[in-house]
């Protein structure tokens, strides 16, 4: 009997060892390499899932690609990148829990959160636990002194809106503008910023208080009174990609003939499926890459992303940048790998070639004008116009 038990134990031990060894073999970070964990805290479920999912998928695609090439060399060491994700469900309380989790895992660089209240909520945790985070939300207080741990991961609407309205005023004869926004903190603050920018340009703001619930499915009742005002430009402030085609379609079906724009990144396939030809002419800040300016590396990124996840998301044109900035800044100053003060020092002088565009743009930290310190990553501000299933570049700007 004892012999049988012993045999069973040996077999169990052998099986456990085999499982452990195979797990080790399957792990991209083998014992020979160090692991650089980069976190993500943001929304990957619910109505705004597209925002965070495009972040996670961009990070995962790029990390897999870099790991496949042997990892990234930072100082004397080579690191495999591991992406650690946390779905905050667009809930600030969960965002805090997510940031706590990142701290427990010893992570110093986190991408996200995706919305204003989440980004504001995690600030104390990030500052207490020495985490640099890259929110996709716009409150200036997060990026202005005395705050110093947040770095804006995209172009803010108060940076893009004046450029867009000015262009439309000068080139398309826009004189009057109406705003409509979801009744949530991000779209409302973006609307207020847009209204201020429009007034500063001397545009006639004919509607500035129309809002909708973010879960609205049919926007005809929302847009009926606005369309009656016949503005030259209808601005969909902070509109989520899921809602943009529905709003455009309702406005056009109600007979609206003017221009429609948004300062948030959109997805061409979503617009095509949801609004078809009615979306033609829609202007948005179309991610940081259009076919005209993207590099072969960006093309390959899109191919890899599409192969991995079945379909590309145009929002990832912008979302691909955060991880690149983190890795390249750490390469520039290896001491920053576990010392965010070193990272902050490097921000001041960092610059590197931008691998995602053909030419004329480099990776650097900006934000002096908007925040009084460099707390924004520089991505090309590509204003696009949707035409028959794809975005065409209207003009390219840059944030200083």
């Amino acid at each position: 009997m004892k012999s049988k038990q012993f045999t069973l134990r040996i077999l169990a031990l052998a099986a456990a060892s085999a499982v452990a060894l195979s797990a080790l073999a399957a792990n991209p970070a083998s014992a020979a390499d160090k692991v650089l964990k980069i976190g993500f805290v943001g929304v990957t479920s619910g109505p705004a899932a597209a925002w965070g999912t495009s972040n996670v998928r961009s990070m995962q695609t790029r990390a897999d690609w870099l790991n496949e090439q042997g990892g990234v060399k930072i100082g004397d060491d080579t690191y495999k990148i591991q992406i650690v994700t946390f779905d905050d469900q667009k809930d600030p309380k969960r965002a805090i829990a997510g940031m706590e989790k990142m701290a427990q895992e010893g992570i110093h660089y986190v991408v996200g959160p995706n919305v204003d209240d989440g980004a504001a909520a995690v600030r104390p945790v990030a500052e207490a636990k020495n985490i640099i985070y890259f929110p996709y939300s716009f409150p200036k207080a997060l990026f202005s002194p005395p705050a110093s741990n947040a770095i804006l991961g995209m172009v803010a609407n108060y940076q893009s809106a004046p450029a867009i309205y000015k262009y439309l005023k000068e080139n398309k004869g826009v004189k009057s503008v109406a705003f409509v926004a979801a009744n949530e903190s991000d779209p409302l603050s973006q609307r207020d910023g847009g209204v201020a920018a429009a007034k500063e340009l001397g545009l006639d703001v004919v509607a500035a208080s129309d809002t909708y619930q973010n879960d609205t499915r049919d926007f005809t009742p929302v847009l009926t009174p606005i369309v009656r005002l016949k503005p030259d430009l209808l601005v969909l402030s902070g509109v989520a990609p899921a809602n943009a085609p529905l709003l455009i379609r309702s406005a056009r079906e109600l007979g609206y003939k003017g221009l429609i724009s948004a300062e948030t990144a959109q997805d061409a396939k979503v617009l095509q499926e949801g609004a078809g030809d009615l979306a033609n002419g829609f202007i948005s800040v179309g991610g940081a890459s259009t076919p005209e300016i993207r590099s072969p590396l960006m093309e390959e990124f899109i191919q890899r992303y599409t192969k991995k996840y079945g379909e590309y998301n145009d929002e990832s044109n912008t979302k691909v940048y955060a991880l690149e900035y983190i890795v390249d800044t750490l390469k520039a100053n290896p001491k920053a790998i576990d010392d965010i003060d070193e990272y902050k020092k490097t921000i001041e002088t960092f610059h590197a070639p931008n691998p995602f565009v053909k030419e004329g743009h480099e990776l650097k930290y900006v934000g002096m004008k908007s925040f009084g310190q460099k707390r924004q990553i520089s991505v090309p501000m590509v204003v696009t116009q949707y035409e028959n299933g794809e975005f065409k570049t209207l003009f390219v700007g840059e944030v200083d």
Partner: protein
Amino acid sequence: MEQVIVNGLYLGAQYALIALGLTLIFSLMNVLNFAHGQMYVLGGFVTYTVYGQMGLPFVVALFASAVTLAVVGALFEKLLFRPVLRRSKREESTMLLAAATAFLLDAVILLVFGEKQRGVPKIVDGVFVSDAVIIPYDRVVVGVVAIGLIVAFMLYMQYSRPGRAMRALAQDRVAAQLMGVNVDRYSMLGFALGAMLAGLVGGLLVTITGVNSGIGGPISIKAFMMVMIGGAGVVGGAIAGGFILGMMESVGLDVLRAYGDITYLVIFVALMVFLSIRPNGLMGKPWG
């Protein structure tokens, strides 16, 4: 004002159809189906796949949505709710189970269909334009189909043998059983029918509003509101609740627009006041 009324009417027709399935399941089984919105979403995605991706006729896609959701509903009832109802006397058990099925469907839908908003080609092109009213033809078609489905459902419940059996079950489960009604069979049929309605309306509305994996929860909440207005478990109440909510939204968004987004605030306050005066809704009975 004519435009506002038309907007309210077709919104109401859509809402009424959404609420019907929810109230049916509640009346038959005393189960608050938190997964109703997710079933709507699944129906939308089935239509998206069959009509939008595979290019089959819209009617086929709608049929596929109805059948898929009927099967899902029947399986949920047989494998999940029936055993729990049999073993547990506490109503919270089925509520928790319903919430769990909602999360399950949310996760499965996100995994299978992705995070993006999806849409399909319009079933009818063109817009009706007059001096007073602008309405796209596809909304007219969807509104008419929704009203047709509501009428068909009511006739089925009123005059068919299974409909009578389900109504008997809703009135008194024990008495119905004593009269020879096969409780298990008709409970399953009722759950399947409720889920099928959710799938049908999801498939129908994907042509106007599209669908995405995250809207299940908000749809359920809206359906609960309609049921609360009309009275839980009463078919006529769900229909009335749907039309009232649709009209309140349409009028509120037009009349109150100058004051910002207070339409839903006003609706919720009105609902609270209404329920404090009439806690069983318009047509609900005090005994459930």
